[in-house]
């Protein structure tokens, strides 16, 4: 069962996020459950696989904003990293970052 405490243990900056959610815990938890299903989680690897760094950047950038707003730090960090690499169109192997994001997302889903 997802709770503020399990999120905190998982690595989210719950205090910061709660301030942003007007100190409404259930509102926060609802948003986190929605965020995990954000379609950009799928669009990002698809765009990279398709060799479309522009689209990939947009997906990463959008995810970054959501993760930052909810202070989901374990996902936010690799997403931020991949966003910057995509912004500068860095030619690198994105697989490790993608799997990191995917793994963190899975671990968050485990909490539900």
């Amino acid at each position, binding site marked *: 069962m997802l709770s503020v405490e399990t999120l905190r243990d998982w690595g989210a900056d719950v205090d*910061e996020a709660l*301030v*942003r*959610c*007007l100190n*409404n815990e259930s*509102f926060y938890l609802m*948003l986190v459950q*929605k*965020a995990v299903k*954000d379609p950009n989680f799928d669009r990002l690897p698809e765009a990279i696989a398709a060799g479309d760094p522009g689209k990939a950047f*947009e997906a990463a*950038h*959008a995810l*970054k*904003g*959501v993760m*930052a*707003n*909810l*202070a989901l730090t374990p996902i936010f960090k690799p997403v931020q990293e991949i966003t910057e690499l995509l912004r500068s169109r860095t030619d690198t192997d994105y697989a490790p970052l993608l799997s990191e994001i995917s793994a963190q997302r899975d671990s968050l889903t485990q909490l539900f």
Partner: protein
Amino acid sequence: MNNRNHAGRMPDLQERNRMRRILIVEDEFVNRELLKAYLEDKYELLIAETGAEALEAVRKHFDTLSLVMLDLILPDMHGLDILREIKQDPDLSRIPVIVLTGDTESEVESLNIGASDFISKPYPRVEVILARIRRSIELSENRDLIRGTELDQLTGLYNREYFYRYAEQYDLYHREEDTDALVVDINHFRLINERYGKAYADVVLQQLGAGLLAAVKENGGIVCRREADTFQVYCPHREDYESFAEEVTAAASEGLKGRIRTRIGVYSRVDKSIDMERRFDLAKSAADTIRNSFSVSVAVYDNALHEKEVYAERLLDDFQEALTQKQFTVFFQPKYDIRPEAPVLSGAEALVRWKHPELGMISPGVFIPLFENNGLIRDLDNYVWREAAAQIRRWKDTLGHAVPVSVNVSRIDMLDPELTETLRNLVKENRLEYGDLHLEITESAYTQDAEHIIQIVSGLRELGFKIEMDDFGSGYSSLNMISTLPIDALKLDMLFIRTAFSEKGNIRMLEISLEISRCLSVPMIAEGVETEEQMLTLKRMGCDIVQGYYFSKPVPAEEFERFLIQN
């Protein structure tokens, strides 16, 4: 159509007292829900999840929206493109937009395009967001209030005073760009007003205002109503204003009873060092040059025109002093009777020269038309008559004889009720014969106010003055009329001589003119004759008297004595 200009429609009091309306454009559920949570009890919220939805909502609610909060990454288009659409549309541009972004790069660009502020992600504390929203709305509403006083009530355009301020601001942001100042007038607006009434005339003004605004929309620029039926435009330079004029006139005439006509004065590539108001005065002066033209609708102000104006003003200013200081000198150009085997001196024309102490010799071709336009020519003519009459007296005294001297009598002189008396006194004071003075009156003077002129000229002629019709052939008088005019000689327009002896060699007009002089039994005088060939041709054709450089240029009185002595 009113108020379409820059401010859009201002919400009325009742609307203001209701909850202000904010459009949130955000496709991410989480971000959207957070904003809704922050704002929903303070504002009425509209939500758009795509760019298309956003534009539709902005257009539908443009007159009641207090703010747009705009995410930059949307599924169908980029937020900056939406921002551009809003800021470039006069109906929408007054709506403040706060951009939602996590990028500093986009922040700068969005501010440049016209965003009021930005809010970054992750969102700052809710109090910060609320304060920024409040401030953006407040600023825009204050600006709307100010704009209410900046606008011309009828057309919704800037009024003149604020226009100049905005034009100066425009310069600040377009320092390196060539810019044009335009003044647009409606031809015969007074008549439109009188004929169709004020309500109709107001529609004409509104449509012209809207037409001008539409015409500058693409390339940018600002428009105002200067006064009455005069508008001003300040916009990026363009080479051709004919199509601009066409476009504006068509827009302004739409649905009206007749096509309105405008005249546009353009001060092209303005000199940004000169005063803003002055730039439009220059454009106005260009527009005024085509006030009476039916075929020309665009006049471009140029420096030559400017210099000419400044020069003309200087001459007008200096005129009285020049008269009292006798800077004007009367020169004499001999006229020769070419009928005898050897040409015989038969008279002279008195011509005025102005030796300006600073500007040097000024051509009469420059100052005479100028003085003719404002009545100063009367004083100048009087001066020349006095000088000429006194000179004839001196020649009679020193040489024992003289020749008749012709002087110019302008149309304006004819309006002087004292004219006959003045001329008669001159003759008496200098103990001359009336026949010593020939009066040159242009053909156009007769045609403009025929009856009055004929009456005066007849009186002068009865006294004994000889009358020469000057510039014959340029005044379009009918043959019927000429036959009734009181004249003693025809003086051929110099243009006929030039045409007859030009490469084309069209001597037909010359022949007809000579025919007329024979019919009227008056001598024909040809001026502007420069070569022997011209003189001989004229002689062969039957011309009586010749004046021109072939015999002599106009010379000072002392030099002219030489011709009198030889005679």
